[in-house]
């Protein structure tokens, strides 16, 4: 499995972690009656907290991933007999090269996630038309952002596995 695929998996993992944590947080607050379907403010603040947590968690997970990956490459190179510092650094740098294929895959997968966000926006509007409580709309928007994140990663993985065509 390549560096790009592993990185994508860690991104999907981050998004899943945030989705599960948000779900658990909301369930707990519902049980504690500190959140309801009439007030928007607690929902908006909860979502803002989780957006911030999502960004922080992604940064931490990516840092940990890069440290572990560098260690594993260094160990592999040492076992292969390339124990010179320069060789190991070169191997680490080579494994993390981003090029035109990766840019194309990122572009195509982000286009797919944009469709997902758009669909979420329309679904949120439909929920208002159907007279659903406003927190439902907020949750649809937040959910589509998180699911779009996961969807983008999944599409990227498929492109890495199946290949990607120009045009």
């Amino acid at each position, binding site marked *: 499995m*390549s*560096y*790009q695929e592993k990185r994508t998996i860690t991104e999907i993992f981050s998004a899943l972690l945030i989705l599960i944590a948000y779900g658990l947080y909301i369930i707990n607050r519902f049980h504690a009656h500190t959140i309801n379907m009439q007030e928007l403010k607690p929902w908006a603040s909860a979502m803002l907290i989780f957006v911030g947590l999502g960004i922080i968690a992604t940064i931490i997970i990516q840092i940990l991933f890069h440290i572990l990956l560098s260690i594993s490459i260094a160990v592999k190179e040492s076992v292969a007999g390339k124990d010179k510092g320069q060789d190991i650094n070169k191997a680490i740098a*080579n*494994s993390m*090269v*981003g*090029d*035109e*294929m*990766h840019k194309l895959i990122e572009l195509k997968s982000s286009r797919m996630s944009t469709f997902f966000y758009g669909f979420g926006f329309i679904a949120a509007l439909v929920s208002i038309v159907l007279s659903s409580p406003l927190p439902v709309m907020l949750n649809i928007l937040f959910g589509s952002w998180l699911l779009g994140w996961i969807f983008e990663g999944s599409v990227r993985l498929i492109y*890495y596995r*199946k*290949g*990607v*065509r*120009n045009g």
Partner: protein
Amino acid sequence: MAKKIEITNNIRKLRFFANEMTQQELAEKAGVSRQTIVAIEAGKYSPSLELAFLIADAFGVKIGEVFDYEMKGDK
């Protein structure tokens, strides 16, 4: 009706004749990742013209010796 072009390549053969050059070595010469070379070799990715020239240059041959194309039927 647009015709579909299937791009084929001789990278595997050229690597063999280049002293069994590894995919990693070719990737380093062309300035891309090994994964991209693997995808091009397997026909899963069609490189840009710039990258195609860089790959040809890595083998010291003309681009036509590395890449070829086949016209597929009307789509």
